């Protein structure tokens, strides 16, 4: 009997720990599987979106002469906190936070272009300031393309700014759309770096166009204190302090629809 029961007992002794091991392995495998699934899900969610925060796009000092007038610069809220979100091909969401970069760029740009620049806050009344003109830039549109869309190795960014210029009496004298374009290849840098670089190049492109064409297109230098106002009758759009006068679209010195060059 002993010889008959011993193997059974041994089997029992052996099987008990094995079954506990198997149960332990099952739990371990299940937990590992859950963890892997969790990591995969997190990875997929993270892989489906890219967040870019734009750095300050500094421009070099331009080789141009300053326009001898004093201007006020009033920037709308979206210049200080502009975020563009877009779903590409229904699978990848991009969030591009331009943040304060536009405000910083235009402050630097107009500082290089004009003799004197006064930054206006939303509550400031420009009529109370000693300025020859008020310039109010804004963003009309921001678009970009990714390599999958363009079938190239490049990211491209288009930004359309709008520059409104008011004379000292608050009359709108110019409403100029400025279209800028930047492109950056992805071969030696990451996708988010390439998109960021394309956006910075588009902003630099806008700066170059504004330096070259602002006075020619808007005749802003003619608004100097001693000058007479622009001859063509502007659409009268009085400045309401802090208000965004988006309705004033027609002007005396309207530039071409799109001066993309």
């Amino acid at each position, binding site marked *: 009997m002993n010889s008959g029961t011993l193997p059974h007992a041994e089997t029992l002794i052996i099987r008990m720990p094995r079954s506990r091991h198997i149960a332990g392995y099952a739990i371990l495998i299940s937990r590992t599987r859950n963890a892997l699934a969790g990591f995969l899900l997190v990875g997929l969610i993270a892989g489906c979106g890219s967040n870019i925060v734009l750095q300050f796009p500094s421009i070099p*000092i331009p*080789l*141009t002469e300053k326009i001898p007038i004093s201007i006020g610069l009033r920037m709308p809220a979206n210049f200080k906190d502009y975020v563009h979100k877009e779903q590409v091909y229904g699978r990848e969401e991009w969030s591009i936070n331009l943040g304060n970069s536009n405000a910083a760029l235009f402050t630097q740009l107009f500082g290089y272009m004009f003799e004197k620049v006064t930054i206006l806050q939303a509550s400031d009344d420009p009529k109370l300031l000693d300025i020859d003109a008020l310039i109010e830039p804004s963003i009309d549109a921001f678009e970009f393309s990714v390599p999958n869309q363009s079938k190239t190795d490049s990211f491209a960014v288009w930004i359309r700014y709008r520059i409104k210029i008011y004379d000292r009496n608050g009359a709108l004298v110019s409403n100029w759309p400025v279209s800028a374009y930047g492109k950056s*290849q992805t071969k*030696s840098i990451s996708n988010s770096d390439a998109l960021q670089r394309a956006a910075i190049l588009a902003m630099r492109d806008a*700066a*170059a166009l504004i330096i070259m064409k602002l006075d020619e297109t808007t005749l802003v230098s003619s608004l100097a204190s001693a000058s007479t106002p622009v001859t063509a009758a502007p659409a009268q759009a009085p400045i309401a302090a802090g208000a965004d006068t988006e309705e004033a679209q027609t002007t005396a010195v309207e530039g071409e629809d799109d001066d993309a060059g």
Partner: protein
Amino acid sequence: MTPADHSLKIAILALVTLVSSGCVTSRVEDAREGLTGINSGEAVVIMAKSYHLGNETEEKYIRCVEKALARGSEGLNVIPHQEFVDSLFPWFEPRTAPAETKNLPKLMERPGVAEKIAAQSVRYIIWLDGETERVAGGGSLSCAAGPGGGGCFGFAWWQKDSDYNAAVWDLVGLESAGTVSTDVTGTSFLPALVIPIPLIARTQAKACKSLADHLRAFIVNDGSA
């Protein structure tokens, strides 16, 4: 190490180098329009034609030509293109850069432009355009991995064409000195029997070296011979 071991190592290295590169054919030619030559202290700058005009020249290629032109005892003095563009802002931006030599006199009359160029002693601007494209490819390759290991099986190939053109502008004569162009075609192979063995045709690197060598000779030799 015996001399025999040393020879064996060199032979293996040569064989690996030979085997690991694909087939490449290249062509370089120039068209001279005027006399060239460069004095010591004078410099060149390499620029890409504007992407506003659809040019796709890779940043990596521009840097490669810059380095190749400056390399060696007979290397030219090359001003980094971004430094040049920044110093002349906004006149050499993709939107504003002169597209033809006939625009140079007007550009040089702008305030500060001639002075900035003279301060950097830039004698020639070399405008690059062109790109490297994959023109054909085929085959199939599959890889698998399991607990006991992994491996690949199959064969793939692709053909690339690196076609670049360099226009040389003389900033002293304010005229075009001529063009140098290179066209390199190469086929890469990737056979795999457990381990993939890439035989890569480096067309862009070849196009960079051949263009830079030819450009240096084009500029240094005045073309009067």
